């Protein structure tokens, strides 16, 4: 991978909140142009922090990149603010969807084009294009966003981000709390946007299996460090990943009860 093919290049960043809480120790990752990269890990591992460091939303949470560099599209993001990043074509879809509840679905999506200077006609044209990916939203476009379902709200959040015409999307747990069927639907849309619109994607997920199946490359982080990285294929077949994140051991599926049983057996043996 040469640098010019990477749209995002994070080198050894360290992030602290409130000047004291160390959230990321040493994270490096690359997103090649036009690819989907998954950032995996448990709660509190540092996935959201990494994404916010990239979109420069950290500042609004009293966080700061204290070491390392982040390069987006060949330039350092150090001096940028979130609205400038959107102008450069990088949009983050925040964790928990965060729709504008009192606005209609369509107003939500149009708000995404705020950073672009578009005429009414242009906006309608863009809207129609967006609706081809999110057919379900077109039907609900006059409803108040707060009254739509969780899956629809996630679609609104992604559609809204797409209205800014991004080169790169940062998706923070897009499938959180969604039923498996919707998880698949969301990922299908994400894949489609990636392939047809050529948007590069960095997504943070806890749903390791689905995320890797829909990505080109993956990074696994734990307590603010990258523990493992590789192509999605290699990670899916990696024994460690299988055991720790997919719940599959060499002997086949393993659940929590089995683990407890094993533990009590080993204890007995020691006694």
């Amino acid at each position, binding site marked *: 991978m040469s640098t010019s093919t990477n749209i995002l290049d994070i080198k050894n960043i360290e992030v602290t909140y409130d000047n004291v809480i160390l959230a990321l120790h040493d994270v490096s990752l690359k997103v090649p142009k036009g690819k989907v990269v998954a950032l995996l890990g448990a709660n509190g591992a540092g996935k959201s922090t990494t994404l916010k460091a990239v*979109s420069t*939303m950290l500042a*609004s*949470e*009293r966080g700061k990149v204290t070491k390392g560099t982040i390069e987006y599209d060949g330039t350092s993001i150090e001096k940028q603010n*979130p*609205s400038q*990043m*959107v*102008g450069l074509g990088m*949009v*983050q*879809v*925040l964790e928990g969807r*965060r*729709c*504008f*509840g*009192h*606005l209609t679905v369509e*107003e939500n999506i*149009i*708000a*995404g084009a*705020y*950073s672009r200077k578009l005429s009414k006609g242009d906006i309608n044209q863009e809207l129609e294009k967006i609706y081809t990916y999110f057919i379900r939203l077109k039907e609900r476009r006059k409803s*108040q966003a*707060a*009254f739509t379902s*969780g899956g629809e709200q996630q679609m609104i*959040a992604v559609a*809204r*981000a797409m*209205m*800014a015409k991004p080169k790169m999307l940062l998706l923070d747990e897009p499938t959180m709390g969604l039923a498996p069927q919707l998880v698949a639907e969301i990922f299908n849309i994400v894949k489609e946007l990636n392939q047809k619109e050529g948007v590069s994607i960095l997504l943070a997920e806890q749903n390791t299996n689905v995320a890797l199946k829909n990505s080109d490359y993956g990074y696994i982080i734990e307590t603010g460090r990258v523990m493992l990285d590789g192509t999605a294929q290699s990670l899916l077949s990696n024994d460690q990943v299988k055991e720790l994140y997919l719940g599959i051991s060499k002997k086949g599926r393993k659940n929590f009860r089995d683990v407890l049983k094993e533990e009590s057996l080993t204890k007995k043996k020691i006694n």
Partner: protein
Amino acid sequence: MVEELLFFMEVLVGGLLAGTMYSLVALGFVLIFKASATFNFSQGAMVFFSVLAFVGFMQDFNIPFVLAFILAALLMVVVGLCTERFVLRPLMNASEDTVLMATIGLGYVLEGLAQAAWGVEVRRLDLGIGDFPVPWIADNLKLFISALDITAGLVAAIMIIGLFLLFKYTKIGLGLRAVADDAGAASSIGIPLKHIMLLVWSAAGVVALVAGCMWGARAGVQFALVDLALKALPVLIIGGFSSIPGAIIGGLIIGAVEKVLEVYIGPFFGGAIEGWAPYVLAIFFLLYRPEGLFGEKIIRRV
């Protein structure tokens, strides 16, 4: 009987129109509450500051009426600019309570600045509209209604229509509503919070100037305007803090209720109940309908 009814009508209409004066002040609060979820305690000071500057330009510098008004409006935009830069931006991530306290401080600064620049004596503001009954209405409808009250009603109507159109149909209005709903999400899609805050504070400043003109013409331009603006609090509790129509209707209700109560129930309490009657009404609203008549319901999916 007819005479009694006419008298009641007169009290009611007088109250309603006086209420629009409250609405005008309340509008300024609503604008800022919508964008930053903060009750702006300095709104009263902004009313005082803006109208004193307006009168000062006219009386001390002999600037003509219209030009002085434009200058005062521009001055309020500058105040908005400074507030965004020196108060709101440094407090960007602070809690709402911190911003609330900051607005109290801002209020004192504005009061002090206004008096330092223009002096402390009460000034007269002549809008060319008399505060006496309109003869035509008095002759034909037998109602005594002040021309100033009618003007205030018209001005309030124009402002509410203007603001409604701004919010509903312009890009900046959409941005403002988005920020009001979720400032973090708005900034994540590239809506610059800075511009929105600047717009809102400037608009609130201009609204304060208009409200100040109406009140100043009635009661004289004086320090008491600061406290008078706090009458907007029961107006907002009744109408809803985040609703522009709410501010208008709330103002009308307060105006009507306080005048009617004053006339019909006041004597039993020895008069002067219009000072506190609106707050009693506000307490009932807080108990039974805390979001007000038109306030945005807190929508929560479960």
